[in-house]
Each structure stands twice: as structure tokens, then as C-alpha cells.
């Protein structure tokens, strides 16, 4: 790790200017939604950051208490709206665990295909917007080109681009349509070249590297202590991917790797997402090839009524560990629902990362942590 680039030392210098407070957001293009940061600055150097969230708070957890279990599924779409399939999956799996529902194999494979497609789409947004934030508009156009094709696939599957509501307790809403298969094959054929293209356009860009390398280094110890998860955690070199560590659905049947970062800087956090997309593409390829025949829904009662009790279930979301905590009192509505949103918890480490860096670096750090406000505010 280089110390040459570390401007944290400046905080200890004797030369100071008057400290002042600068407000960033809530309406700011680099805050990924409606999010505000109150920066305390010494000249250009950030002394402290106070994140202010909640502008998008809709009270999903409270709303869920007044809805039936099935009615909650569309609300989960609107948490991490860039990865709705994954939100769906975490929720229905928690219920299935509670009710002891056996999901048909074909449904499990379809779920994996959908989730990995959505993970790629979500990472493409992350990578593309990060490119814009670092001053390169081109990267954004290229990543959104592929993302649009995935959105088309999701629309084919579920009828909706983003708010899919595709998963059901016991399976998925519908079988994959016939036109899906040639479309996904052609996408899979083009993806590796597209990822190489992003690497050429963004990752290899000298200005981009200068802006992100060694900036906002998150050491593994701090990451674990702050409950950071997902690509941000793995960029710091901590090997923790629930698809491997605690395989759910049928993830144990696929051959894929968990990419890890070395330095835990903004560059690693960016890069790891491109590497993860390559792995997700591998999973989709295997899942499409091995898709078994059979039903896509288990036999479940019309009214979902889990036995009284509680469950906490976690999956690997696009931004980290996505957990659903459900308490049932035996009625058709959840007594309590809590969602462990990875963006919300990852946001907790941002202030720590920004201290000692310059204002422009705050954008690099926040962009590389990649939060989705729909999920943070819940």
C-alpha cells in the first residue's frame, strides 16, 4: 500500500484554514438518488462527513404489516430497484424456509438465471455511473447498451423491466418464454467482449486510475467491523460470498469464482464488479444449459400463512448481504418484517473512508461503494 497518495497526513499538519461546512445534496448527481452529505472541510480536505438519509423513506416495513405475504412481493422490488429479482428471491426464500416449501428444480434454475441477469444489469449501472462520476461519459453509454438488452430479457420474462415481481412463494410466476433462449444466447455470446471493452474504456483509462487508485482504502478489519458486505467487502480481500459460503437455491451446482480485490481502494471496488459480471455470465451459461424440465411452481396454498415463529434468511444481493427477518403470528400478514439492506449498512463506513480526502474524492468513494437510495431508505 502506498502512502505517497495518502493525504490523510494533512489533517495533522499545523497549517490550517478555517473549517467550514459544505452541503452536498440532497439533489446532487453523484449521490445516487436523494441523499445528502454534510461535509466539514479544511480547505479542500474533508475533516468529517455526516450522511443524511431518509428522503426516500416509505416505511416498507410498516406497510408490510398491513399487507398479505403475497402483496409484499411488489414492495420488495422497490427496495433495491436496480436488482429487483434478488430482492424478490430473498423474500420468498425466507417464507419458503418458514413454511418448508420444496421448490421445483426448474424454478430454482430460472431463479438463478433471473438473479444473475439482474446482478449483471445492476453492476452495469454501478460501473457506468461510476465512469460518469469520474468524468467519462462514454463508459456509461457502453454499459447501458448491454444493460438495455438485459432489461429486454427481464421484460420478456416478467412483463416489466425493473419492478419485476417475478418470484412467488414456491417458484416463479411463469415459465421462460420461447423467445428468451435465443436472446439470452446471443447476449451471452457478446458479453465477454463487452466486458473487455469496458476494461479498455474505463478500467485502463489513465485519468480514471489516477482518480480511483489508492483513494478511500478500506482495510479488511474495518470492513468486517462495520458489517460491510458484498463487492465492497470483497474488494478489501475478504472472501465472503454467500453463494459459496452458505449456498442457497442451486448455486452449489455451478462452477464460478469469487473475485477478490487486493488494496480495497475505490479502483478495486469498481474493478471487482466487472469481474463479478464475468462470473455471473458463467453461471447463467451453465444454468441455461442445464435447465431441467418440470413445473415452475410448487403446490402451495392460495393463502400464504406461515406457522407462528420467525426466520432470518440471507442471500447475496447485488450490493451485499440481503437479509429478511420475518415474524409470523400465524395470520396471513407478517407481524413484523425487517430487511437487512446492504446499501444502508455499507453506507455506515463512507464517513470513515472520506476523512482526509478531498471533495472530489468523496464522489469517487461514494460512487465506488455504490448505494441505492431506495434500499438505504427502505
Amino acid at each position, binding site marked *: 500500500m502506498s502512502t505517497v497518495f495518502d493525504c490523510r497526513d494533512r489533517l495533522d499538519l499545523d497549517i490550517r484554514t478555517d473549517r467550514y461546512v459544505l452541503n452536498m445534496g440532497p439533489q446532487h448527481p453523484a449521490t445516487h438518488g436523494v441523499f445528502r452529505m454534510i461535509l466539514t472541510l479544511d480547505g479542500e480536505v474533508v475533516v468529517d462527513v455526516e450522511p443524511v438519509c431518509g428522503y426516500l423513506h416509505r416505511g416498507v416495513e410498516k406497510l408490510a404489516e398491513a399487507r398479505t405475504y403475497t402483496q409484499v412481493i411488489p414492495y420488495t422490488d422497490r427496495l433495491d430497484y436496480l436488482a429487483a429479482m434478488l430482492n424478490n428471491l430473498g423474500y420468498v426464500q425466507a417464507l419458503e424456509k418458514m413454511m418448508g416449501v420444496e421448490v421445483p428444480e426448474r424454478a430454482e434454475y430460472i431463479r438463478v438465471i433471473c438473479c444473475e441477469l439482474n446482478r449483471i444489469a445492476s453492476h452495469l449501472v454501478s460501473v457506468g455511473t461510476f465512469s460518469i462520476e469520474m468524468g467519462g461519459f462514454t463508459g456509461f453509454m457502453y454499459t447501458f447498451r448491454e444493460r438495455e438488452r438485459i432489461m429486454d430479457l427481464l421484460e420478456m420474462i416478467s412483463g416489466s423491466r425493473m419492478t419485476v415481481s417475478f418470484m412467488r412463494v414456491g417458484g416463479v410466476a411463469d415459465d421462460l418464454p420461447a423467445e428468451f433462449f435465443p436472446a439470452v444466447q446471443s447476449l451471452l455470446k457478446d458479453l465477454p467482449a463487452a466486458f473487455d471493452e469496458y476494461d479498455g474504456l474505463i478500467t485502463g483509462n489513465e485519468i480514471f486510475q489516477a482518480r480511483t487508485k489508492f483513494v478511500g482504502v478500506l482495510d479488511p478489519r474495518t470492513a468486517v467491523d462495520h458489517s460491510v458486505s458484498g463487492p465492497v467487502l470483497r474488494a478489501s480481500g475478504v472472501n465472503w460470498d454467500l453463494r459459496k459460503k452458505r449456498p442457497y437455491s442451486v448455486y452449489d451446482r455451478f462452477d464460478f469464482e469469487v473475485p477478490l480485490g487486493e488494496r480495497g481502494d475505490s479502483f478495486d471496488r469498481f474493478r471487482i464488479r466487472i469481474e463479478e459480471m464475468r462470473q455471473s455470465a458463467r453461471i447463467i451459461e451453465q444454468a441455461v444449459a442445464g435447465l431441467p424440465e418440470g413445473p415452475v411452481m410448487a403446490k402451495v396454498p392460495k393463502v400464504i400463512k406461515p406457522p407462528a415463529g420467525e426466520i432470518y434468511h440471507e442471500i447475496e444481493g447485488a450490493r451485499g448481504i440481503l437479509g429478511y427477518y420475518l415474524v409470523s403470528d400465524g395470520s396471513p*400478514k407478517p407481524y413484523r418484517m425487517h430487511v437487512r439492506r446492504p446499501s444502508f*449498512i455499507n453506507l455506515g463506513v463512507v464517513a470513515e473512508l472520506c476523512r482526509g480526502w478531498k471533495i472530489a474524492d468523496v464522489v469517487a468513494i461514494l460512487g465506488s461503494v455504490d448505494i441505492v437510495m431506495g434500499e438505504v431508505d427502505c
Partner: protein
Amino acid sequence: MPDERVAGRLAALAPEVPSLAVGEDAVTVAREDLTALMRFLKDDPECAFDFLTNLTATDYSDHFTVVYHLVSFVHGHLLTVKCDLPREEPQIPTVMDIWGGADFQEREVFDLLGVVFTGRENSRILLHEGFKGHPLRKDFEWAGGRES
């Protein structure tokens, strides 16, 4: 049931922490002993719960239950810790000095349920400062609920 090794260590700890009860799904503890138990769970090499994955609470009308979901990255095991609080006086010591990740989650629980975490500053995180009440409490009156 908790992992065998963890169960063994918890059994050894039991005399020091009288309120500790190891149940089928979760470990329960009184709030007086919470800090001691949590410290032990993190520092003991056999337990090594270095990752606080989830922290939340539920209002059961007559009491609150605060739930901690812990993971050990070293051993890979999981543990659920629960602590009941009287509804009149919902106070519990913070675990922020044990796991930094508790910071935002405790603030969220304070904001939405009104559970006060002692030993730290409690401030709202999602709702605005002037908001009255704590919406996830069962006696919170709100519009937008559906008639059952």
C-alpha cells in the same frame, strides 16, 4: 441449535452470566448481561463472532425484543441473540464499541421503534427530527393501513 463448539463455550460461560439461556433457535440474555455476553462472543477464539450481520427489534405489545444476528467469518457459524426489554423502559446498552456496524442499525431501531441505546447518542436516521412517535410500534396510529 447453535454450533456445537459455540454451545460448549456458552455452557462454560453460563455461571458468569446467570441470565443466559440457550434455546433451540436463539440465545436469550437479560440486558444487564448483554455487554458481557457480546464481548465474549466476539473475543472468544472458539466463537469469534466478528461480523454483526443484522440488528433489529420487534414490538410484541407487552415488551420489545431486540435481535442480533451474528456471523463468524473465521468459523462460518451463525448465532441469534435476543434480549427482551420492558415496554415502559425500552433501554439497552449499545454494542457499537464491539461492532462498528451496529451504529446505523441501532439508530434505525431507535428511530422506528423508540428503543434507546445507552452509552451512545441516539438520533433519528430515516425520519426527520421533528417526527412524533415511532412508526414500527404496534400502537402507532397511521393512515394507509388496510382494514382486515
